[in-house]
């Protein structure tokens, strides 16, 4: 218990008939970058809101830093930083004033706060924009300001709820690097996203959510080992007969194949040298082929296999 930062036990949250969180439990250790992964509407934000006591829940318990969380648990809140998807800053205050204001909600000592604010500005690289009003900042700079407002008071637990939505790739990389740096500096991170690549990149442990339930939890390797698929081979090949496809399907460790007239997809479960064996079948039958790809499973594959649907909608 001593290094458990967050403990959620059997949490239930209902919106009328809809069950947003269904007996959800979670334990996050100190120093972890914990990813909450799930499609839109899976209950990630509801979990965060309950965790922060911004939302009443119907059943369960939440402990942070070993103490029960409540709306008036200000000693706990003092050590939490929150960065939400929406940029929550005052348009009427400058960059410096905004960071100073939000930092001031935690740190009352003026001299100490000034140092914290300057550190935060340096951390997000807004040194040249301290006197700018938010409306004059680009989208990427605004995101950085949003992050600075959330972490200026140097919290021990930082919660980031989809902070990279609608962010350009350059800013996104900078944000992700920043999160890793915060973690290296000692903060425990809870990171929610429906971008599996981000979660894979930065999270040491991941919980996958769907329909308010935790459907899997572990490191990314542990999660990938949970599923049958270990390798997907894609070969560009034209005019493939059913007979040859059947030969490929009959190879050891191959559990499924697909062919759309242009591309042969072979799904393998375990084993080694699967690609060589599949290519061998094609060569033996004098079939010429184009480009060849071999892909290891992603978290999307994990989600797909567990739930039967993709993690992200196609348009996303």
């Amino acid at each position, binding site marked *: 218990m001593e290094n458990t930062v967050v403990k959620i*036990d*059997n949490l239930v949250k209902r919106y009328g008939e809809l069950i947003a969180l269904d007996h959800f439990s979670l334990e996050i250790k100190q120093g972890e970058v914990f990813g909450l992964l799930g499609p839109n509407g899976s209950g990630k934000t509801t979990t965060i809101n309950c965790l*922060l*006591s*911004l*939302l*009443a*829940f*119907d*059943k*369960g*318990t*939440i402990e942070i830093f070993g103490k029960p969380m*409540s*709306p*008036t648990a*200000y*000693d706990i*809140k*003092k050590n*939490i930083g*929150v960065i*939400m998807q*929406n*940029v*929550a800053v*005052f*348009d*009427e*205050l400058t960059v410096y*004033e905004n960071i100073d*204001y*939000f930092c*001031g*909600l*935690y740190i*009352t000592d003026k001299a100490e706060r000034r140092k914290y604010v300057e550190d935060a500005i340096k951390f997000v690289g807004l040194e040249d924009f301290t006197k700018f009003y938010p409306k004059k900042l680009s989208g990427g700079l605004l995101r950085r300001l949003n992050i600075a*407002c*959330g972490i200026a008071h140097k919290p021990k637990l930082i919660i980031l709820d989809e902070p990279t939505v609608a962010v350009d790739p350059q800013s996104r990389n900078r944000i992700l690097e920043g999160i890793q740096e915060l973690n290296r500096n000692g903060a425990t991170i809870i990171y929610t996203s429906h971008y599996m690549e981000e979660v894979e990149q930065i999270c040491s442990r991941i919980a996958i959510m769907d329909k308010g339930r935790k459907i899997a939890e572990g490191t990314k390797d542990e999660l990938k080992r949970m599923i049958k698929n270990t390798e997907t081979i894609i070969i560009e090949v034209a005019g493939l007969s059913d007979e040859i496809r059947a030969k490929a399907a009959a190879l050891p460790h191959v559990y499924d194949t697909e062919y759309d007239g242009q591309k042969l997809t072979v799904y393998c479960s375990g084993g080694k040298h699967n690609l060589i064996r599949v290519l061998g079948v094609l060569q033996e039958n004098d079939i010429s082929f184009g480009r060849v790809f071999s892909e290891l499973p992603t978290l999307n594959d994990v989600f797909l296999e567990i739930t039967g649907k993709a993690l992200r909608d196609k348009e996303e």
Partner: protein
Amino acid sequence: MQVFKAFFKVLKRNSFTAIVFIGVFLLLALMISDGKAEVTIFALDAKKVSVFDEDDSPESRKFVEMLGEKFEIVDIRNDRDIITDMLYYEQIDYAFVINRGWSEKLAAGETDGLFTSYKMHDSYAKVIVEQCLDDYVTAVNVYTAAGMSLDKAMDCAGEDILVETDVTIEKFGDDNKDFTPMFAAYYRYLPYIFISAILSALCPVLMIMNRKDIRFRTNCSSVDANSYTMQIFAGGAVFVLAVWLIFIGAGVYMYGGIFRGKAWTALLNSGLFALITTALAVLVASVIDSQKILTLIVQILGLGMSFLCGIFVPQSMLGDSVNAVGRFLPAYWYVRLNEMLCGDRLYSTGKAMACLLIEAAYAVTLVLVTVLIRRVRYSGAHKMTAAKA
């Protein structure tokens, strides 16, 4: 005091409209008062009269000369079209012809057929000039009947007509010299300016501080929810107090005097209305979140109360139905008390207290409604049910 300080920084960026309202109002008030406390309430106004002397006798010329001291004689051609045009465009107020044989008829004590007049029907000028002519003829007849010569009688009648009367305007219960009608008029407009200035500055700030994402971040922080509310309340109170003091100070500067007697009640009345406006601002900011709608609401509330409650037009000149509607609005009771204090309405302590109590009731009601609405709208963030394990 982080929230308190931020409140004023946000207010600073949203105060332009309020500054314009306050500046324009004070400028107008200053121009009207001319920076002096003395106000001329009654002034004689010489009517413009054209006289056509067809009698052309020494007596008629003497009469015209006497009229010149009473009225402003305007020389125009004796042409019906010109006279009617001049009357229509109010370049003259009255015109009349001294008929041929006027002096003989006057000497004989006749009263008919002396004058032929041109006038605007139902005008005050017609009443004033005809009253003067009638009084003159009657006086001459009285003096000649008493044995005076026509010449002497005309002199005496002229003296009578030219006597000026000192006029003082008496007010009901007017024992308060410190609250002049001009000062009262200044106070009468305060509700409009309070609503316009306070709402247009305070509401946007409250709306920003209540913005969902800002509240979210604040609720996540370690600042006590009650402390946060109190700091915003303190910010609003300081702003409203400052606005109120500006107007009270400007009133003292323009109309002079240290508040005494009933003027203190006027001060209390305005303070109470400033409180109502504050409660109204918090209520409005709790139910709307659009700047465009806010502008509309400020106009509706400001102008609506002004027209319905007697701010722009005295209540005595409003119809019964308008006054009946106005009774449901707080500004009506403010204006009613203000009218009592300046003597436009009969003053009684009981009625004055009733007005103040009704205004206080409005303030309390607005606060309660606001608390209720805010509890419904924002309670989600703080109302956490006890978790049932």
